[in-house]
């Protein structure tokens, strides 16, 4: 993909669909489909079609300003600053201990670092609920390492979270856990049911695929145990999802993997966004995007749901609102990582980079520090005229930190540009 895709009147992206086409405004995020006849009439500058296009907000006049400036004007008018007023959800990094060793894991595991303690957990949760007094919801996701190795802390934290929710008038607490699914025991299943958990099991698909990147510390695969545990969770009525991590080896057969996951009775699939832990995207952006697009439709065709970064594009197109700040949640808050020793990382996926990690006491005194999670929008020269600029916004703070480079990874650019064109061809309104 390049930024030289067809532009109508030097402004609008024109995506051919046979003799028909879809026109897209990268600034307003509006789009419209054109029949073959309408395409021809536009090429002929026929006055009636120009008037119809104008009614829809597409004008043939030259751009009033460079695309980048127009996008910035729009987000300023919309009041989008990228500065969250509060933390509304935690990824609680309860331990770095893990019973597996997966080649692509972005977390440093089994370092010997201390697990979070009960007083630290209490302090973190109190800070979260105080900030969210009167709010509709806060989210808590247990993370590690393998969080179920410290199920005792999960139980304690969940009970305390509900107590704090009542005290501070928070409407609901959404509990989730990201687990490898190996250590699930009956008391956990009962607890997950009681607290209406969403249990996200990370695995890579069928046993032959799973054993490529994911093993127990002993070096053995654990597929049978994981699949048995998934079945136990589903049979007990627990909401189970699957977190799939795209790799160069599995991306081409992602739809097959999705078929396999669906065959296990799992109806929620989340395809992780590549994390450039070694300084770059290891997955081909265009191939990933096409695989995710097809997988999404496949999941929908079976009554299931598949989430990925493509959703940001659909949301932007369907609501006409920019989706440039991925760190801002639907409720306007920030999802942060609660760490041991009374610390919080304002990037929920990065606690290696000290510049994003603060003591809770400091965040209480200087809440403006949360703004540090906001990325620099459209930082690169090629961002300026990118058709996907308002749905991508440029690399996240985490990407910039991991890549040590403020410019976007070319594979990420491909993902969003191809994703934009694919999403424009799909207005099924199914997800």
């Amino acid at each position, binding site marked *: 993909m390049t930024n030289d895709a067809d532009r109508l009147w030097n402004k609008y992206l024109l995506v051919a*669909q046979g*003799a*028909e086409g*879809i*026109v897209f405004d990268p600034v307003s995020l*509006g*789009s*419209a*489909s*054109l*029949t*073959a006849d*309408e395409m021809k009439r536009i090429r002929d500058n026929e006055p009636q079609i120009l008037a*119809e296009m104008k009614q*829809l907000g597409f004008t043939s006049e030259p751009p009033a300003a460079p695309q980048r400036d127009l996008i910035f004007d729009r987000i300023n008018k919309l009041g989008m600053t990228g500065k969250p007023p509060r933390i509304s*959800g935690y*990824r609680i990094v309860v331990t770095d201990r893990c019973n597996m060793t997966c080649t692509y894991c972005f977390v440093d595991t089994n370092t010997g670092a201390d697990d979070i303690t009960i007083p630290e957990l209490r302090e973190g949760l109190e800070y979260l609920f105080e900030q969210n007094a009167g709010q509709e919801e806060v*989210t808590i*996701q247990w993370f590690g390492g393998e969080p179920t190795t410290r199920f005792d802390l999960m139980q304690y934290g969940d009970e305390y979270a509900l107590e704090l929710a009542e005290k501070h008038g928070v409407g609901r607490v*959404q509990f*989730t*856990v*990201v687990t490898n699914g190996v250590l699930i025991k009956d008391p956990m299943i009962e607890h997950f049911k009681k607290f*209406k*958990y*969403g*249990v*996200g099991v990370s695995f890579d698909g069928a046993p032959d695929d799973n054993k490529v990147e994911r093993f127990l510390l002993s070096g053995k695969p654990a597929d049978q145990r994981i699949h048995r545990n998934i079945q136990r969770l589903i049979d007990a009525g627990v*909401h*189970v*999802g699957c*977190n799939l991590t795209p790799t160069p080896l599995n991306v081409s057969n992602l739809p097959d993997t999705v078929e396999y996951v669906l065959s296990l009775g799992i109806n*929620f699939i*989340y395809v992780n966004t590549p994390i450039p832990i070694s300084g770059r995207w290891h997955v081909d952006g265009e191939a990933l995007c096409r695989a995710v697009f*097809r997988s999404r*439709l496949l999941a929908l*065709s079976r009554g299931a*749901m598949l*989430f990925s970064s493509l*959703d*940001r594009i*659909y*949301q932007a197109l*369907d*609501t*006409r609102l920019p*989706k440039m700040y*991925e*760190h*801002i*949640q*639907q409720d306007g808050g920030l999802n942060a990582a609660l760490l041991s020793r009374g610390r919080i990382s304002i990037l929920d996926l990065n606690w290696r980079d000290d510049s994003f990690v603060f003591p809770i006491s400091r965040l209480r005194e200087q809440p403006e520090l949360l703004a540090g999670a906001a990325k620099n929008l459209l930082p690169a020269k090629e961002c300026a005229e990118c058709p996907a600029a308002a749905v991508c916004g440029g690399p996240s703070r985490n990407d910039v930190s991991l890549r040590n480079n403020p410019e976007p990874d070319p594979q990420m650019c491909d993902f969003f540009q191809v994703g934009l064109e694919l999403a*424009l*061809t*799909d*207005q*099924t*309104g*199914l*997800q």
Partner: protein
Amino acid sequence: MPKPREQKDNHLIYADAVGSRGKSGVWFGEREDFKAKQVSVMDAVKERIEWVPVEDAVMAISLDPPGIVLMAPNPSLPGIIVLADGATSENTEHLKKHYTEIVQGVLKDANIAQED
């Protein structure tokens, strides 16, 4: 007239994409909530319109081209209703033709005459 993309910002009308908070699990429990809301919305809609039940209706999702097709037995006349929606008129026509042919194939295999 060119056809603008529909605006979808209401989960009760369209099950829209999750937000950037769409990490694993966030929506798991919400599915029950929105299904309950869908039922209450449909109940209210039914109070405002004349309607007939359409039993055994199904929706197919096409992967290529992307689109949705609703197929349902006509509740008051012989035949099967096929409604398709793709992003462009060509895609919509393609979907309608393809799925109509499937219905016709079934009719033929079952030796059921297609009524004019």
